[in-house]
């Protein structure tokens, strides 16, 4: 197997999923790159069984939705899914349509929203916006339940345009007002729970009598618009195509400036944004078609290690690599908080603007968490994935310090590092001499050295990228 095929496949799986073991990379590389992209876009593997999680974590069972469990149910899905691109898109939509427990105070509704993102993960963006407008958590989050025919609340109307579809500078205050009017009467109803202490279930309700059916003028279109009409007008806007393209580029290809700067800072690769925006428009807003264009493009293939990993990517990819975390064992609630400690509390973004990405994930506290968490996972050879890594290196026989370092850099990436950095790793490896596996004592020492080398590599700056 050509090593550049493995490197490219590893790149694809890091971006379109949460990484993959070397066995999986080899199997996928044997199938071919484009075939793998197709499989990721149209997965046939069974979805993760939510009941498996609930069976062992009944505290999460509706209608109790134990608050302490937080995002554990979704975390369990990310750890186990065999449909990785689909789940990556769920994360994409969650980061874009940032909705937070801080205000919702109702985990069940947030998990329901995440399930809705999964249903539409790679489907049609227009349909997703309609589902989002009817999503109870979103309606509550952006106060559309307080948006009445005779008392318009503009929160949802504004963020739909500013944060979810077009970006600032592409609409007027009148457009915000008119869009908001069109969504009057889109509210939530409640179903009483079975037990006294439980949260009430929410569902979308359209109240005709609370809807402003008057004429509206929105982005130069005039009519007695309802919410879906507004969304139909939005998705025709070139600003919308560019906005979604830039978000996809930032999430899948390379770090862009923070979203608030987009109005004034041009994209780092304008042609790539044009390519994505065109695919989005020509496919009538079909995410699957748009993603296919991205993953098969040269700008994607050439963007290895051009993004800082998000905390969710750091944690999930390490746990999937090490293996042994598939079962929802006690402690998964705590494990699911790891991304929080690194600055990304899933299901509770700091605001509707979502998280700042790229280098802004990193400060001295979060960097220490990333390094220490990686070290704790990679040093644990009771995990099947870690044993598989040792077996592979062992399979290469006795290794010189250079061979040992290159082998570790290869298995963890393949990762490119500066020559000076590689040289220092080799110096460190030289202190232990040749890596040998002949005797039981040698094997024990060598396994420890492999663990230590992987920990050193995982703590490199280069390893904060994906």
């Amino acid at each position, binding site marked *: 197997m050509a090593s550049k095929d493995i490197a490219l496949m590893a790149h694809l799986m890091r971006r379109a999923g949460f990484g993959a073991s070397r066995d999986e990379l080899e199997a996928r590389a044997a199938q071919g790159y484009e075939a793998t992209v197709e499989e990721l876009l149209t997965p046939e593997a069974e979805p993760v069984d939510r009941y498996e999680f609930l069976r062992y974590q009944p505290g999460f069972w509706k209608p109790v939705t134990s608050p302490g469990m937080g995002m554990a149910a979704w975390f369990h899905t990310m750890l186990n899914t065999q449909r990785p691109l689909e789940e990556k898109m769920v994360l994409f939509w969650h980061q874009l349509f940032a909705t937070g427990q801080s205000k919702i105070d109702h985990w069940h509704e947030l998990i329901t929203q995440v399930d809705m993102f999964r249903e539409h993960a790679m489907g049609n963006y227009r349909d997703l916006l309609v589902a989002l407008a009817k999503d109870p958590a979103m309606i509550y989050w952006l106060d559309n339940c307080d948006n009445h025919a005779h008392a318009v609340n503009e929160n949802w109307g504004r963020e739909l345009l500013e944060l979810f579809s077009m970006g600032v500078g592409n609409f007027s205050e009148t457009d915000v007002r008119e869009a908001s009017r069109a969504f009057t009467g889109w509210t939530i109803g409640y179903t009483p729970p079975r037990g006294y202490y439980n949260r009430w279930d929410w569902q979308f309700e359209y109240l005709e009598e609370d809807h402003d059916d008057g004429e509206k003028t929105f982005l130069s279109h005039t009519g007695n618009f309802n919410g879906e009409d507004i969304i139909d007008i939005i998705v025709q806007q070139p600003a919308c195509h560019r906005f979604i393209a830039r978000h996809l580029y930032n999430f899948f290809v390379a770090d862009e400036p923070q979203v608030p700067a987009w109005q004034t800072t041009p994209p780092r690769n304008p042609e790539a944004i044009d390519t994505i925006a065109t695919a989005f428009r020509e496919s009538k807003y079909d995410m699957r078609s748009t993603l296919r264009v991205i993953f098969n493009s040269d700008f994607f293939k050439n963007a290895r290690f051009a993004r800082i990993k998000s905390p969710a990517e750091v944690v999930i990819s390490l746990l999937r690599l090490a293996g042994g975390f598939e079962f929802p064992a006690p402690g998964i609630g705590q494990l699911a908080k790891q991304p929080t400690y690194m600055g990304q509390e899933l299901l509770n973004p700091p605001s509707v603007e979502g998280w700042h990405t790229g280098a802004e994930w990193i400060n*001295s506290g979060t*960097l220490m968490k990333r390094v220490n968490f990686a070290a704790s996972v990679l*040093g644990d050879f009771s995990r099947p994935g870690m044993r598989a890594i040792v077996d592979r290196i062992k399979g290469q026989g006795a290794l010189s310090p250079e061979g040992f370092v290159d082998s570790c850099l290869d298995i963890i990436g393949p990762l490119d590092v500066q020559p000076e950095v590689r040289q220092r790793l080799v110096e460190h490896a030289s202190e232990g001499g040749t890596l040998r596996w002949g005797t039981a004592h040698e094997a024990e020492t060598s396994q420890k050295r492999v663990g230590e080398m992987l920990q050193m590599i995982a*703590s490199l700056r280069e390893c904060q990228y994906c």
Partner: protein
Amino acid sequence: MATTDKAPVLVVLQLSGGNDYMNTVIPYNDPLYRDYRPRVGLPEEQILPVDGEVGLHPSMAPLHAMYTQGKMAIIHGVGYPNSVRSHFRSMDIWHTCEPDKTGTEGWLGLATRQLDPRKDNIVTAVSFGPCMFRALSVSGVPVACVDDLESYGLLTGISPEPQRAKILERFAQNYSPLIGTDEVMKYLGATGLEAMAGADILKVAPQRYASTVKYPETSIAKKLKGIAQINFADLGSRVFYCDHLGFDTHANQLPVHATLWNDVSQAIDAFFADLREHNAADNVLMFLFTEFGRRVRDNGSGTDHGAGGAAFVLGDMVQGGQYGEYPSRKPSDLTQGDLAPTLDFRGLYATILEDWLHVDAQPIVKGTFEKPRFL
């Protein structure tokens, strides 16, 4: 204004979950208290009297003693306009001083930037907890985040220690500037070295520490002990932040709330005893707050989210006593069944910022608010 030769130090203890004001500073002489709290009321004979009107929770004996010595200020009715009853949002408001929009800059992060504008000391602010409190978070302001001082540091899982030291040396080399790297790599490099230096600085604190004071075996006592250790090590830390969880007493409040205040009071007692033993009590101010008080009327077992709450300021330099006004309990004066705040928390912050830390409060609290004069 309080003065001391040593640089003033602030310790914030956040009572997370919404501490029940009415069962902490209890208006026991008000007959309405009994009406509102048929199940979650405290018997009068157990209440620690402060004056003829209010008393402290029975678990707060050490704090009551500090009050009696004139070393504790009770701040009444603290909150902000249009109280929010969501824990997270309300906490955000307290952390950022932005009640009307989403703030991103923490009040003590901004204070830290004023205290150490050139980032001469990367442990000027120390956050005790698994993640940084938003109150300390400001882009470009270094904050040391410690969950446990004993095990704090980079790659602490690697043993034995000489081996770890060797690996940390490589870490430092690998994070050092390299010719030809881009801005992000440079930023990562500086941040990694900052994290390592912070850990190196703080690790001396437990080594230098000796004390006869026995702290209780509680999580809050452990945090305060860590803060004391860093403070005694003279590392130049000025702002410490920690929290104690569990004040969200919707159910089974009486025993739960008693345990919470017992743990907090005993820990604070040990902390101040330790400060006195080290002749360090005169430049430490401790500030206790919570994101909101709780509903006036009990729910049969606990209390639900409310509005106005109580805050406390402790220390040798504090002018003890009561500040502000206990909000009226009359049904017609309640807002949505809650005590209406009588003092904006930003005024309280302004007192701490200007009269203790000696920094400019204006750009932090963004306005002018009534300052309780407890310093």
